[in-house]
Each structure stands twice: as C-alpha cells, then as structure tokens.
C-alpha cells in the first residue's frame, strides 16, 4: 500500500523536477542570449503578475488551452495517440468564422450556433483517424498529423476564397457580425464569456470521463482492451465515439477563441493549441480536474516569455523548448527510477519492522 502512495508522490515529484530542469535549461539559454540574464529571467518569471492586464492575458491564453486540454485528455484516455485536436481547433475556428460572417442571427443564438458548428468540424477532423484505426488498424499518430495539414489548407481555402475580405489589405475573413461576438467579462482585460463555456466544458469533461458510463468504458479500454471486450463492452464503437467527443471539444475551443479574441479570422498557419493540449493532458494525467492548473501554468510561461521577448533579445520560442523538455522528462519512465525504488524498499522495510515488533 505504501508503495502506491510513493508512486503517486513520485509522479508529482518527477513532474516538478522536469519543470525545474526545463527552467534551468531555459535560464542557460537566456544567459547565452541576454546581457542581463537575471533581470530577463526575472521578467519571465514574475512579469506576468505585475499588472492586471498581464494577469488578464494569462486567463485569456488559458481559455483555449482548457478546451484542447480536455479534448486531448478524452482522446488519450482510451489509449489513442490522436494529434488531430490541432486541426480540429483550427477548423473549428474556421467553421465558427463562416457562421459568424454569413448568417444573420439574434444575440445568444448566433455564438451558440458558431460553437456547435465548430464542434462538428472538430469532431470530423478527429473522427477520421479513429475510423482509420477501427476499420483498418492504422495507428492514429501519422494519420492524425496528416489530418492537421488537410484541416489547415481546407480552412485557408474557405477563409481565402469563401469569406475573404478583399478590402482588408491582408489575408483575413470579413468581420464577424456583432451578434456572434462573445462579450468581455472584465474591464481592462480581454477575458471573455468563453471562460464560462470553458469552465463548463471542464466540468462536463470531468463528469464524462470520470462519472459517466461512457467515460468508464473509455478508461477501461485504454487500460486493457481485452478486459473490456471480455466484459462485453463495445470496444471499437467506444474508441470512435470518444475521439468524436474529443474532437468536438477541440472544435468548440477554436470557435470560442475566434469569437472571444478576434474580430475576423486571421490565422494563416496552425495555432499550436492542439499540441499544447497534449502537454496539458500529459501533465494533468488525462484528468480534466487537473487540466486547469496545467493550462494556467502553460499560459503563465507563455505570457512570461512574451514579456521577456519584448524587454530583451530572448525570442518567445523559448517556451517550446521548455515545453519539450517537460514532456520528455515526464515521459521518461526510468528517470528517477532508482530513487523511487529506494524509497519503496525503505518503506517496505519499515513496514516489516513495525510488523516484526
């Protein structure tokens, strides 16, 4: 029993160590680039807390990450490495843009339809790799990455040829109708009503994965598909279903991001929110409960890097380096293994001694 607690503690410690290593390496880069490394690093670490606007920035950046974090958590829970949440997020945004530009609808209903439309687009993108897996046994890693590129160009096709605003002077869509825009919640920041939707998705995602019968099936299939089959679960159907749901959430995220943060569709490349979702899902151990802190953490280092980039020569891309280092160390099972083993041995010895007395 002791050993299980140690393992849990170990998982958290390994995560923290990974974060520390990543920040240390980042600091190394900062020293290399910046003439005033301590000040720069200080801006990076503490800058985000200095003004309300910056705090608002963190929350703004967190909103889309909550969607993709939940999306990836759902999809990975049944052991499907489906990367299409990236494309789903993008195409979801495009679908929302299309609806926001094209249809005249009343307040309240308009954003709702945009978000639902975005969700369906996302589900489509994430569902195709799942169909390939269930029907043909194609592992979703490669097919989902290909789907991302298809989504990108399909989305750009719609933006640049269907709803392009030729007057704008740069490639983008027409302005979204006012009825579609998600209102801001606080003055001085751009934190918009999408936050409420994100929190709702977070809660629903948690209930879906951990409190509903579908989530139960998804998690059991992820852990042992043979057991699921033996117990009479519909393995293929569940896999397909949960990729569709995960994709729907990613697509919703894309839609909410468009309606909350932008007045017109301006992306010309993938936004990377889906890949960020993978990091968040890994850090939160595929549990929506922990998606919020993980997403806040990522948004925080993003905002910090932005501030650092503006005040020094350190480019914002340092965030990706930090992100990569964290994933790789969290994924490395044997990293710190020796330490964990010693702890377990120590604990079981202690237990024996207590029993011996």
């Amino acid at each position, binding site marked *: 029993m002791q050993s*299980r607690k140690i393992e849990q503690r170990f998982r958290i410690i390994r995560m923290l160590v990974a974060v520390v290593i990543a920040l240390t390496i980042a600091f190394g880069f900062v020293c290399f680039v910046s003439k005033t490394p301590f000040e720069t690093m200080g801006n990076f670490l503490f800058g985000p807390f200095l003004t309300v606007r910056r705090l608002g920035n963190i929350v703004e950046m967190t909103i889309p990450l909550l969607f993709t974090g939940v999306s990836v958590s759902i999809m990975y829970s049944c052991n499907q490495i489906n990367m299409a949440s990236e494309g789903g997020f993008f195409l979801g945004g495009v679908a929302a843009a299309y609806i926001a530009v094209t249809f005249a609808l009343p307040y309240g209903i308009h954003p709702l339809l945009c978000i639902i439309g975005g969700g369906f687009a996302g589900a489509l993108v994430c569902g195709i790799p799942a169909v390939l897996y269930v029907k043909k046994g194609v592992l979703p890693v490669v097919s989902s990455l290909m789907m991302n590129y298809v989504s990108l160009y399909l989305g750009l096709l719609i933006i640049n040829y269907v709803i392009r605003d030729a007057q704008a002077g740069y490639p983008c869509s027409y302005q979204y109708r006012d009825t579609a825009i998600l209102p801001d919640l606080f003055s001085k920041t751009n934190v918009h009503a999408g936050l409420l939707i994100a929190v709702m998705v977070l809660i629903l995602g948690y*209930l879906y994965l951990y409190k509903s019968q579908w989530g139960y099936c998804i998690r*059991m299939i992820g852990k042992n598909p043979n*057991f699921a089959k033996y117990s009479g679960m*519909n393995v293929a159907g569940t896999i397909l279903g949960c990729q569709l749901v995960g994709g729907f959430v990613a697509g919703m995220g894309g839609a909410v991001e468009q309606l909350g943060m932008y007045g017109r569709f301006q992306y010309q490349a993938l936004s990377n929110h889906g890949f960020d979702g993978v990091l968040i899902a890994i850090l939160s151990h595929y549990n929506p409960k922990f998606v919020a802190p993980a997403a806040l953490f990522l948004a925080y280092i993003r905002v910090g890097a932005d501030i650092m980039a503006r005040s020094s020569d350190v480019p914002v891309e340092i965030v990706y380096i930090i992100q990569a280092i964290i994933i790789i160390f969290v994924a490395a099972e044997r990293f710190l293994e020796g330490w964990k083993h010693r702890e377990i041995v120590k604990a079981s010895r202690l237990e024996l001694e207590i029993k011996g007395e």
Partner: protein
Amino acid sequence: MVNNEYILSMENITKVYSNGFVANKNVNFSVKKGEIHALVGENGAGKSTLMKILFGHEQPEEGKIFYKGEEIHIANPLAALDYGIGMVHQHFMLVPSLTVAENMVLGMEPKKGVLFDYKTAVERTREISEKYNLLVDPEAKVEDLPVGFKQKVEILKVLFRGVEVLILDEPTAVLTPQETKELFTELLNLKKNGYTVIFISHKLNEIKEICDRLTVLRNGKVTGIADVSDITEQEISNKMVGRNVMLNIEKEKAKPGSSVLQVKHLSYTDMHGKQVVKDISFSVRKGEILGVAGVEGNGQREISEMITGLLSGQTGEILVDGKALSGASIRDIRLSGVAHISEDRMTYGSVGDASIEENMISERYYKKEFNRNGLLDFKRIKECVNQLIQNYGIKCDNKDAQVRTLSGGNIQKVVVAREFSSNPKVIIANQPTRGIDVGASEFIRKKLVSLRDEGVGVLLISADLTEVIETSDSIIVMNNGEIAAYFEDASKVDETILGEYMLGLKRQSKEEAGGAYYAE
C-alpha cells in the same frame, strides 16, 4: 558427490517464488550421458521451473548443479548455451520473416568483407541438417514452414551452437502424429550420436516409445525415478496424479434439473489449421457442476472461449436455456446468463491499473440500478462493491486499491466476486484456482458448490484433478480435442481412472462419452 555416470545432475534444488509458492522442493534430477530422459508431471508439478533453473532463466534458493563432474552456476540462458545445455521452447524462438539459414546463424553470422555471407550460412545449415538427418530447406522462410519443420529448425539451431544436452519442452504438443513420428526418429538418431535429451511430456505412450529413464514430479517433489522398461504406464500415471491433499468439500448430492447450457457438435480449427476441438457435445444441467478434466491444451480453453464469445469461427451450436448463441455479442451472451472466469486473469479477467471498484462493475455498469440522472450512481456502486469485498473476504485497504497491488488470490476473488454476483444461470470457470493460495482456492470451490445448490449450472475446467473430482458432480475428460470419457457420478472416479483417460491410455466408446449430452 561426483558420479561420472551422469553428465548432468541437479541436487537438492529448492525454488520459492516471490509470492511464496514453492515450485521445487529438494528436487534431485540426474541424467546419464546419451540417454533420452523423460521428465513427467501434471501441470504445475514443477517441471518447467526445474528446467528454467537448468537453462538459467531462474535462480534456485538452494541446490547445486553438476555438469560433467564439475559444479556450475548458470546465470542466464547464454551461459547455459556456453556450457552446452540448450533448450527448445514450446513457443519457438525464431524470426518468422528470415530464412532457415539466417535464423540458424543469427548472433554468429559468417561474413565476407563487410557483407553477411549468406552462401556460407546456407552451406553450414545444409551440412548440419544432413549430418543429423534433420532435413529442412535452408533457404525457405521460417514463416512458410509447417510447425514440425519450425521445430526442426529450433533443434538444429541449438545443435549448431554446440550443445550436448537438449531440453525439449513438450515437443509433441504442437505436432501431428506423422510429425511426432518423424521427431522420434530424429531424436533416436541424436541419441545414437551421443547427445543427451531431456524430454518433457505428459504423453505416456510417447515416453514408453522413446525414453530410457524417467523422473516424475508431483507438487514440486520427485515421486519416482525409474528405467522406463521397468515401469508400466499405469504406474507412471499413479505416481503423477496421486492425491495431493484432501480438499474436504462438504456438499450434498446434486439434484440436476434441465439443461441450461447445451453444446452440440462443436468443432474449431485454429489458425495453423490444426483441429483443436473435434465435434464435441455435452450439457450442463441446472444445479450441477460438470467438471472438465484434462491436460491443458486439449481444447478446453477454446471451448470456454467459444461459449463466452471471446473466440468465434466455430461450427456447431451452443444454446443457453434453449436459445442459440450464434452471432450474439459478448454482452448478449452475458445478458443471457453466462458468467466467465477466464484462465488468464491478468489479460481478460481484470485491469491491473484500475481500482477494485472499477474491476467489479465492468459487466453491470450500464444497468439501470447503477445509473442516476445520466451519470453513474457511485453511492450505489460503492455499496455494491463494499458488500462484495466483504462477502468475498477480499484483503485490501479499500475499494480504491489498484488491483495489481493485490495478491494473486485476492485478484482472483475480485474476478470471482464480479462474475458470481452477476445473477448467472451458468458459470464457465476455467482454472479458477490456478496459482492462488489454498485459502482462496477453498473459498472459490465452496462458492461454486453453494451456487450450484441455488440452481446454477457450472462448467468447471481444471487441470487439477483433485479439484475436479472433489468439486464436480459429473465429469468429462478431454483428450486431444475430444471427449475421452464421461462419468455421470464424479464420486465414483478417482485420479487414477481420470489419469488413464486424460493421458490417452483409455477411451470410452462413442455411446458412453455421448452420455454427456442431455437433450432436455
């Protein structure tokens, strides 16, 4: 003690596994140079453990190994090979897409410059295959070869590495009769060339046919060492299956009702084209435990998985309560009242990385009583699971403990608790007590009996004869995919009788064995 008559001797070997299971206890095992020595025993008697120790897969707690008069320590299989001890596993250690010659030289490839010298590899393979009269085409791909030939390649591979003592682990289990015959000629030929062979087997006629001496293991101990010519098959069988322990299961005589599970003319051919189940018919009646005795691998696994829906592609009919199951999904089969204890408890029976609770609700989570307002009703589930933990005496911290942290017996109790509490009409129990402690085993057997008293039909498949005899009301014996015998009254048979049928010494007539099927 150094005795030059023996090329190899293992003395006082004791092996205790980390879960406390004593697999070998003071085992003495000696082999003379140039003999074919049979190592016999039931499933779980300790043969494999002993051979794993000899081949360096496991280290013994006590005991010494002498080889050619000197004490040796075998750290791993490679060291064993270096000493000249080689093993042909039941599951072949071959790379399917490579040719025979490539498999042969793997790890010691001949080279010509920077390139692999395939020609030389082929030549050497041909040489050695001709030398030992084990004829295979060196350039054939292994995946295209029939099983018998793959085995030849395995034997050649071991010989090619300069081995003098060959361990063959149930080599005939996968072979057709013709292939078996061929193998025996080859083994006798090897013996003539001075090689020593350790032959692990259940099949007494084969042992009689080619072995010189034999060692019998039962329950981890040696129960007999003899020259094959001095001992009858009957005597070997007695030494193998003698009563281990009294199980003392108290039960009243069964009052069987109508048939709840009927199996009609069931046949199954596996992916290698071997017919593993041959036109089998039997019935399990309400309030009866039908035991299935037999050495593992005689079709029992396939039968249980065809009934429960894990395996498909059979011919014949399976009926539960008079309704045919053909085409039914696993959930439909379970809903019709079939519960299943799989012999593979970590692959099918449970999820090691999930909690006890999650393991216990896998076949009922969707039912109305466990759902409320569209979500799982965890209060109900908790009540149900805690009740089961208590009723089945599962030792754990609480319902959230991960199953893989439990002992084998407790894991099996989790499986059993789930399956037995699913309101079954018929329970397929495949090796329900294998590898678990005595207490849990006894508990599970008693539960089976009490469910029987409530009118449930039980199909109890087990390689443990004592268990089959003591727990069952009627017994069928499987041999080679067929029903070799049916005994309507289990109390009238003993291990010796069953042993004769399951080891293929005897066989009932078609009419007698056909008694296992009840139309009603």
